[in-house]
């Protein structure tokens, strides 16, 4: 890399492309996210935001371009390795594990849990027990943090839409990520809960985590994000503070039409 900014970046996307059946969903998209920030990604429907998230998380393989997470190049890595590096994503439509309890959903987010490896089960039962205990404790902490503790032993399918969104976030936190990609975290969540959720994100940010989120609720984006990146037709068209983005004529045009 020839140019290097003074502030180290936690995520760098460079000229990433992805097409589906002749339609370019993401078209030479480049952007960067600085650490310990809450960065918003906005743009009209079909701008390629969710596809970009899937590309970053390794669920799709880019047709071209590079994705760097800190100092690691992550495009082409399988999703589970990317998670282990500290990058997690949530879904716009919650992917809760329906027939498992909320607590089970969370404990599944454990990282390097000894009990998840078959050999340890038989050869290191003590370690497995200790690990599991530790992870359950951690899961309970996260549940308290996300105010889901009352629902710990409910099946995930029994939760309301908003609670499922919270569960998504809680589960993502279990993997102890440094960067969380949130796909519409407050869509379908009632305003009070949404407010709490964003407060929680703010708190976690102060603890050192970075959030990169797609959101359509402009109040959230304008009031809660440090920086906003705007995508339109598969590429970034603006990048800056919420106020500057709001005033940017290119953005207004892409949203309102020119």
């Amino acid at each position, binding site marked *: 890399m020839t140019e290097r900014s003074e502030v180290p970046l936690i995520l760098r996307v460079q000229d990433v492309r992805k097409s*589906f059946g002749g339609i370019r969903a993401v078209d030479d998209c480049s952007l960067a996210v600085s650490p310990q920030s809450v960065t918003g990604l906005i743009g009209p429907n079909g701008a390629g935001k969710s596809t970009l998230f899937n590309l970053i998380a390794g*669920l*799709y*393989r880019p*047709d071209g371009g590079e994705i760097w997470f800190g100092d690691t190049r992550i495009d082409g890595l*399988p999703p589970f390795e990317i998670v282990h590096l500290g990058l997690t994503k949530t879904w716009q439509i919650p992917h809760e594990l329906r027939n498992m309890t909320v607590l089970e959903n969370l404990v599944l987010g454990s990282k390097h849990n000894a009990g998840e490896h078959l050999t340890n089960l038989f050869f290191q039962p003590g370690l497995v027990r200790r690990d599991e205990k530790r992870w359950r404790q951690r899961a309970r902490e996260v549940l308290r943090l996300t105010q889901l503790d009352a629902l710990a032993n409910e099946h995930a399918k029994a939760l309301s839409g908003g609670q499922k969104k919270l569960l998504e976030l809680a589960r993502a936190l279990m993997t102890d990520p440094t960067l969380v990609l949130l796909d519409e975290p407050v869509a379908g969540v009632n305003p009070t809960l949404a407010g709490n959720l964003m407060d929680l994100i703010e708190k976690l940010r102060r603890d050192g985590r970075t959030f990169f989120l797609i959101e359509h609720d402009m109040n959230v984006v304008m009031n809660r994000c440090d920086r906003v990146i705007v995508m339109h037709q598969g590429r970034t068209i603006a990048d800056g503070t919420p106020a500057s983005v709001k005033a940017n004529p290119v953005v207004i045009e892409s949203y309102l039409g020119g």
Partner: protein
Amino acid sequence: MREVLRFTPRSRRQLLRALIVTTIFVIFLAALATLFGITILQYTLAGFRLSSIVIVAAIGLTVIYGIRGFANFAYGDLMTLGAYVALFVNMNMALSLVWGAIVSFVVLALVGILLEVLIFARLEGRGPVPPIVASVGVGLIVQNGIRAVATTQQWIFRVPFIPEIPIVPGLGFHWIRDLGTVAVGLAFMISVHILLTYTNLGKAMRATADNLELAKATGIDTKLVTYAAWAVSCSFASTAGVLLGLIGVVSPVIGFNVLLLVFAAVIVGGIGSPYGAVLGGLVIGLSQEMSVPLLLGLGASSAYKVAIPFIVMIAVLILRPWGIAGRPPPFARRVFFIEKILDAIGGRPGAAQDAERESGG
């Protein structure tokens, strides 16, 4: 309407491609015949005979796959049922087998609609496994019902005796077994082509298979289309069953025994595509029968020929899971070790090795 009749570049390209493939195949056959003697042509003939039956069945199977989205494991037994209905007409009512086939065609079409109404309509939207399980149940009922009613005895259709016509020593053909089967296979291929390209029902079927939601919003009577698909699928099964009985005997397992061949053909050709089914059927039928001299040459039993189609199928599943003629889905689930291997040997089959399940699932 002149432009409608003119060949479009696409169909011209296809015609050209078909011609090239045919020429290569003929040259290949000629080479084989000079190398191994004229008997190889007998195996080729057997291959075509098997192919025509497999094609008829594969088209039927794939039609219901396109509309309903599941692999019908009862299909083999429905073929058997078709053969037995024809047998009943042929023996008990002492009519010609042609009448038997026609009656069986109609009866099986009704059976298909009945299956949809009674069972499969209730399993809509539950993923691929529940209908597979239910279809196995249907298969068990049909196969054992036949055993209970008609015993496990083997039967032979009453058809006029015609001796085989020798062409050259070591090569001969039989009017009914060889020409009849291949002709029926061709006729069904052509009629399915006509159904799908020239009739409203066929177009509506293709549209429904493409996009069920849009079909409903367009005003297509998707329920009627589903019934029609079942009728087509099961009546094709009946004809395939009659042909199977014609080249061999009628027994309660004739259909089940070729079911896997039909599946293999459908997968090789690309599941859900009737044209792929034709291609897959040819590949499967020819590869099975023409492998016989090869196996004998290697000193193996010719019974292993039934394994050949599955080797072809597994190869297709590894390299091109959407089949020869199928279109790659926009997202196919990523398999990292296969990607790594392919990257290592320096080539990936198409960019669509990539992620995701929505369209696959």
